[in-house]
């Protein structure tokens, strides 16, 4: 191995390994292992300095690496495999790099490999990280041409990148956004957030709590008050074990309602399901979204980056009756299970005349039998799960209560369905938006009353009424249980005021970042142009962007001129300026001779000329830097000599 290259050139390997760790959720632990092996190999070669590897051997390893990568990730995830192969290729190229040119090529390749991280995450931290990696990368490139020290190379490259950043920002804002040339496969994201299409609460021993953000919502113009029930998925088929997503979840409405009671802008984090979040009866006019018959919205195409959309929402329309097939669908239950629960429902049905009376009886039952809200319920595998819950365990979370309530309602012939979504949200007081996290996931019931239509019923609220206001994170009672399930995350420390403050600040920064940077699309650009340049916005923006490009080029021109200009000491500049006035009259070759001649030409200036020479001699020939005071004196002398010499 050629040891003439500085060790920090090999930092690239470490960075690539870091990327593989960040993407562990997408690439799997096996791939990280592969990258670790390659990085360790590189590190060991750095320490032991063995001979150069033969091309044949490297080719063999590359082939093996490619096969290993493809088999570890699976060819189905084309984007993931592609990015993973890039990482492995860069790592291997690094191992056998022996010439300056190869390092240059690796550095150039890194300009592609590093930003690939943005395909998976576009958080502000990812952006910051990639910026740092690119700065080091650029420092290597600089160093390959100039032989600087690591620190100064990094300083130059960081300075350069920081200068380039606003320019790139200007270009992103002003260069007209082109539509996608062709459809590329989206990277398969391993979204940690999102709901399940089938709700089966009885199988879950420990409700996983994640503090990952699901979406953020802000309301326009209207002051909305909670509780916010964010509807996402309607489950109207119960098979005895789980509530399945409705067949009509993907059925669109033909005409959108006319009047909305409110409008909300929502930025949803990427999820594996298309179903998005809305309030009450929601619909959207966005081209990216569909509005379905249940009053929820969903994505036409899954996205790997946060989706920003607007919804209009309104109350449910009063309905007199359901069509028979639809009534049957919403009262259907599998036979022969949960007989006790059915009997209970029949009893209540005979005791009540209206649906609300029936619900009152149900509420009384839950309250009088000591039901408990818990995130770690008793599990059951029996066929009569709801019986178990209602008559034995008496504990559960929202899924249990909603499931049982819907079953009881259906048993009495009242149309009912399960709705899953999120409840609440943490309000950011500065910006007025709500953040909804994965631990805010919730399930509740909607039942139908003739003449009134569909109504919401949240049986969990009877047991844990605090759950209705605010987010789960703000719930005192459950806080210890809740936090123990969270693992390590900042919200786990929300009791500590300073850490909570930091968390909220970061949260806000991320909100702005998502809204302003990540979701700056053609639509937003168009709106911005219109605001700034009037109705002919597109045209003027085009002109303006050309103008910006022109300005940038001019600025670069002068900047690079400035950068390459040799910074001569000011003493010599002064000296040359004085001497150049008398070029023709001077015959000497040294500075001292010049001064002697100048003294003859300008006898009245002799004293200042000699003092001037003294200072120059001190800085130039004795190599002693001048003090501030001496520099000021030098300047004064220069000015006076120059002034008098002109006369």
């Amino acid at each position: 191995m050629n040891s003439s290259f500085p060790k920090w050139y090999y930092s690239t390997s470490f960075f690539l390994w870091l990327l593989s760790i960040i993407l562990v959720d997408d690439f799997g632990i096996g791939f990280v292992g592969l990258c670790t092996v390659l990085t360790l190999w590189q590190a060991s070669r750095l320490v032991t300095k063995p001979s150069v590897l033969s091309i044949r051997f490297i080719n063999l390893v590359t082939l093996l690496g490619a096969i290993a990568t493809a088999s570890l990730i699976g060819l189905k995830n084309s984007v993931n495999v592609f990015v993973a192969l890039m990482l492995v290729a860069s790592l291997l190229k690094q191992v056998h790099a022996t010439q300056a040119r190869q390092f240059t090529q690796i550095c150039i390749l890194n300009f592609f490999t590093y930003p690939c991280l943005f395909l998976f995450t576009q958080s502000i931290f990812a952006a910051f990280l990639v910026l740092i990696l690119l700065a080091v990368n650029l420092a290597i490139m600089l160093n390959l041409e100039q032989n600087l020290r690591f620190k100064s190379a990094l300083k130059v490259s960081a300075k350069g990148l920081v200068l380039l950043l606003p320019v790139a920002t200007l270009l992103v804002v002003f260069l007209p956004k082109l539509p996608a040339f062709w459809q590329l496969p989206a990277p398969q994201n391993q979204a940690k957030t999102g709901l399940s299409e089938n709700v089966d609460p009885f199988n879950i021993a420990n409700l996983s709590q994640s503090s990952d953000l699901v979406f953020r919502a802000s309301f326009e113009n209207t002051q909305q008050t909670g509780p916010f029930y964010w509807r996402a998925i309607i489950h109207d088929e119960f098979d005895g074990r789980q509530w399945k997503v409705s067949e009509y979840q993907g059925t669109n409405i033909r005409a959108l309602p006319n009047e909305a009671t409110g409008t909300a802008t929502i930025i949803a984090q990427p999820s594996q399901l298309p179903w998005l979040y809305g309030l009450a009866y929601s619909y959207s006019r966005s081209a990216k979204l569909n509005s379905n018959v249940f009053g929820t919205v969903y994505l036409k195409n899954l996205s790997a980056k946060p989706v920003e959309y607007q919804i209009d929402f309104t109350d449910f329309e009063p309905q007199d009756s359901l069509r028979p097939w639809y009534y049957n669908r919403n009262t259907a239950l599998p036979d022969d299970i949960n007989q006790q629960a059915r009997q209970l429902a029949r009893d209540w049905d005979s005791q009540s005349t209206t649906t609300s009376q029936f619900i009152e009886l149900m509420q009384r039952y839950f309250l009088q039998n000591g039901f408990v809200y818990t995130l770690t319920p008793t599990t059951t595998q029996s066929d009569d799960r709801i019986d178990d819950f209602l008559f034995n365990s008496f504990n559960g979370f929202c899924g249990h209560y909603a499931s049982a309530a819907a079953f009881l309602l259906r048993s009495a012939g009242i149309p009912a369905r399960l709705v899953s979504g999120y409840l609440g949200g943490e309000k950011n007081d500065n910006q007025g938006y709500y953040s909804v996290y994965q631990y805010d996931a919730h399930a509740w019931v909607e039942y139908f009353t003739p003449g009134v239509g569909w109504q919401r019923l949240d049986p969990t609220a009877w047991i844990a009424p605090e759950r209705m206001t605010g987010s789960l994170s703000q719930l005192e009672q459950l806080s210890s249980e809740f936090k123990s399930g969270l693992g390590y995350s900042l919200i786990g420390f929300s009791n500590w005021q300073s850490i909570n403050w930091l968390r909220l600040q970061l949260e806000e920064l991320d909100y702005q970042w998502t809204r302003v940077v990540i979701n700056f699309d053609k639509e937003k650009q168009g709106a911005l142009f219109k605001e700034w340049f009037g109705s002919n916005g597109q045209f003027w923006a085009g002109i303006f962007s050309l103008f910006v490009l022109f300005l940038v080029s001019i600025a670069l021109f002068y900047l690079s001129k400035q950068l390459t200009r040799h910074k001569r000491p000011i003493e010599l500049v002064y000296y040359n300026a004085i001497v150049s006035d008398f070029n023709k009259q001077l015959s000497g070759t040294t500075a001292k001779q010049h001064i002697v001649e100048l003294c003859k030409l300008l006898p009245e200036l002799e004293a200042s000329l000699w003092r001037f020479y003294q200072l120059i001699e001190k800085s130039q020939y004795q190599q002693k830097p001048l003090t501030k005071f001496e520099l000021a004196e030098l300047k004064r002398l220069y000015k006076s000599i120059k002034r008098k010499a002109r006369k």
Partner: protein
Amino acid sequence: MINRLKRKVQQHIYKRHQRSEIRLSHNNIYILPSKDGGFFIAVALLNFVLGINYQNNLILAVSYIMAVMMIAALFLGFFNLNNTNVRYLGSNANFSPYSSSIRLSISSSAEIQSLRLSSAYNQTAIHISKVSGEKALELSAPELPRGVYDTGVIKILSYFPFGLVRTWSYIKPNDTFYVYPTPLPVIDTEFSFGNASNISQGIQQKERSVEFDHLTQYQKGMSLSRVSWKHYAKTEQMLVKQNAPESADLHRVIFDYSKLSGSKEERLSKLCSMVLDADKQQTSYALLLQQNRIPFGQGEAHKQCCLEALSEF
């Protein structure tokens, strides 16, 4: 066809650089992306396409950063070479196969980074990482056969700042340099000097001349070729070989090409070593190269004239 066009363009460009001193400026500096620069542009385009297709502003921003970097590299590369003064200082001749060299001086009021200089005669360019003020340097022309060579085009090239652009210019001094024949010791006794009377003596004298008379202390200005290196290696004393005074008629020798045996190059090589020996002995000698005659003479200039004649022949 394309090659002819290329050559024509090149000749046209070289014509503008036919000077022994050139100040690099906007009308004689050429800038193009290097091969790596082309790769860089391709990566920037790839990022652009990716950014557009995934509607990913961050990737798009990286591609714009790369584009601006490229433009900045063009400017920086230009200003790096701009206002540089390149002066041709002459050449140093040498005996084949040792390398002759072309001497240049590069000066600039600013600092020049990462300069590569190459001529038609050296495969790998010499790389100078930094020039501030003035710097003289030699471009070697190794392993050339005997002859006179056109100094040719000297290329001044830089990949500053990131290796993405190549900034270059030429200087084409209208000059030649010499590569003398390889000196070949004369062992054959057939050859004869033009002056028939001292043929045998000449040879004898030549062979005897290896046997020096005595050694004296080396003094500054004495020819280094007369130093007894053997002695130096043993005692580290610099002693100079003093030869016995030669007979009067040996002070005038004629070296005749046509009287020597062997191939043309062999004969020239022999003549070369004869010239060197004669010069060492401070003999007055003349050179007969068929039509080309160099009259009797002595000293450094005469020796050089003879060696050049041998190179040219």
